[in-house]
């Protein structure tokens, strides 16, 4: 059976009794000819009380509503139909109701007066829900407006749905102007940053929040500001559409403090290194006038000062309150040694292999000087006959300890020449620095296969990314 077959076999009265809207048929005098079951149920009345009654007199004149009179007496006579006429009224029997009324004039063949069909839909609950929703929206907006950090809600296509007052203030636009615009269209399009756009596009589909995206810009009336952008997906219960909450955290003051601290650190570092340059220069003057036997010791002293100087570059570069990245430090020491000691031994290569560990500045100086002494010894003594040589500076974590390895593929300890006085002093320094760092030193490697010095140190280095030392 098709829909057409069903339609042909049912009477109009069946349809009238089935539809959820309340239906009324009025004659030309606005007396009620008939009503359907939905009308009687909605307005708690009966066919006996209703049929033949003037609509205004129905239910002790509770239908004598000015808006309904306007519709029936002023609008309908001039129009064939009216749709969506909203009537709000306090009914004594059912309370305050909001109704949407559709009206249509119906004419039968030969009947010039015709009837009026009123379809009345009770939209009270929908309207109440809408009012509640508006109240909630206003409350939410008030809370949003009270938040100091600017924030916006974006549609899935990255257009602005709403913005806080703080946001509107910094961008100098109204809520109406903001609505529907893209973040990339704000200001002079200076927020059209590919990296930001790329991140924002990932928030919704991949549910990947943006924790912090720094952007610096000039704002009218505010001047130059730095904002940290945070974004995350927001989902409304029962609603499958998703939106994006974008919060602008003003970090201008914090950034300025960081920059001031960095400037100060750089300035101090600059002064210290200039002073160290003076010290190195004083030694250089001594070298010019001293005996040849004293020169190696003085040059070794310059190298030690150079190793300390490298620290200041790394401290100023550090983001963790002065802690030093070990691999970077070893690389700097290797570079310094390569430049100062290998001029006549250019075939020696110094390699660095270090885990990502950090060291606090108090221990960095003896640590750096220790590496400097060991590597200097290797450069001076491991390759007396020239040729290609390799020196490895390595640091790795072994359980609760750190192992510093300085190895070479030179002639090995047994065949090395007897240490001259400065080198002997260098070995003394090694012992002192190892004691200072609470470490233990071992030498290894079979004869003729180079030298490997291993120094076990307590875990005085901090794994990169931790905030506290694991052990003192």
């Amino acid at each position, binding site marked *: 059976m098709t829909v057409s077959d069903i339609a042909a076999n049912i009477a109009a009265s069946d349809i009238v009794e089935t539809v959820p809207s309340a239906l009324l048929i009025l004659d030309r005098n606005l007396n009620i000819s008939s009503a359907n079951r939905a009308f009687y149920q909605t307005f708690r009345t009966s066919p006996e009380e209703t049929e033949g009654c003037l609509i205004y007199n129905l239910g002790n004149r509770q239908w004598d509503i000015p808006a309904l009179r306007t519709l029936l007496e002023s609008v309908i006579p001039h129009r064939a139909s009216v749709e969506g006429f909203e009537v709000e009224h306090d009914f004594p029997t059912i309370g305050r109701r909001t109704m949407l009324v559709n009206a249509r004039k119906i004419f039968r063949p030969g009947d010039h007066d015709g009837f009026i069909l009123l379809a009345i839909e009770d939209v009270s609950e929908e309207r109440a829900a809408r009012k509640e929703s508006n109240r909630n929206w206003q409350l939410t907006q008030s809370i949003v407006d009270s938040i100091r950090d600017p924030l916006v809600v974006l549609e899935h296509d990255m257009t602005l749905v709403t913005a806080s007052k703080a946001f509107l203030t910094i961008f100098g636009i109204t809520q109406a102007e903001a609505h529907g615009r893209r973040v990339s269209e704000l200001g002079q399009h200076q927020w059209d940053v590919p990296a930001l756009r790329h991140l924002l596009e990932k928030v919704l589909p991949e549910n990947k929040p943006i924790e912090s995206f720094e952007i610096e810009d000039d704002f009218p009336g505010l001047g130059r500001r730095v904002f940290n952008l945070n974004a995350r997906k927001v989902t409304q219960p029962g609603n499958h559409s998703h939106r994006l909450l974008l919060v602008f955290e003003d970090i201008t003051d914090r950034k300025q403090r960081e920059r001031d601290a960095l400037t100060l650190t750089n300035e101090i570092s600059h002064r210290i290194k200039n002073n*160290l340059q*003076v010290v190195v*220069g004083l030694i250089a003057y001594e070298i010019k006038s001293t005996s040849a036997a004293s020169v190696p010791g003085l040059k070794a002293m310059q*190298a030690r000062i150079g190793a300390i100087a490298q620290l200041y570059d790394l401290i100023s570069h550090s983001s963790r309150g002065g802690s030093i990245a070990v691999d970077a430090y070893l690389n700097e020491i290797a570079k310094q040694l390569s430049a100062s000691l290998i*001029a006549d031994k250019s075939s020696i290569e110094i390699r660095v292999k270090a885990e990502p560990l950090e060291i606090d500045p108090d221990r960095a100086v003896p640590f750096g000087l220790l590496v400097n002494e060991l590597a200097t010894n290797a450069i001076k003594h491991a390759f007396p006959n020239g040729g290609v040589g390799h020196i490895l500076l390595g640091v790795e974590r072994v359980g609760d300890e750190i192992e510093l390895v300085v190895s070479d593929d030179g002639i090995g300890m047994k065949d090395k020449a007897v240490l001259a006085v400065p080198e002997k002093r260098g070995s003394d320094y090694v012992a002192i620095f190892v004691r200072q760092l609470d470490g233990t030193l071992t030498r290894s490697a079979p004869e003729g296969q180079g030298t490997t010095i291993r120094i076990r140190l307590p875990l005085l280095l901090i794994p990169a990314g931790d905030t506290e030392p694991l052990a003192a």
Partner: protein
Amino acid sequence: MAMILVVEDDVFIRELAESLIQDWGHQVLSACDVPQALTHLKSSQHIDALFTDVYLKAEIHGGCDIARQAILLRPELRVLYTTANRLTDKLHALFAAGTHFLPKPYTEDQLGLSVHNLLAN
């Protein structure tokens, strides 16, 4: 032997550099700031190389300004920068193309090697 213009605002460090460079048989001109350096560079004096500190008290990147103007005046001039500041990418971007760098503190051996390489290229 070469004529080298040494620009350094610290008197001790400048005189040390001059003394070492002279020990290696070169001649030196000296300046402590941008105007003095430009006076030498605008003169008819033959100059082979410029050895300049980047940070000159009155001007944070005074050495870079000197080098830029020096190369305009003397395109063949060789340039060696030095500084006690860390060599960041931002600072490196201020260096003229094809120039050399020696970080402070430098020893006489390191300065000697840098000057040798500067004049050899």
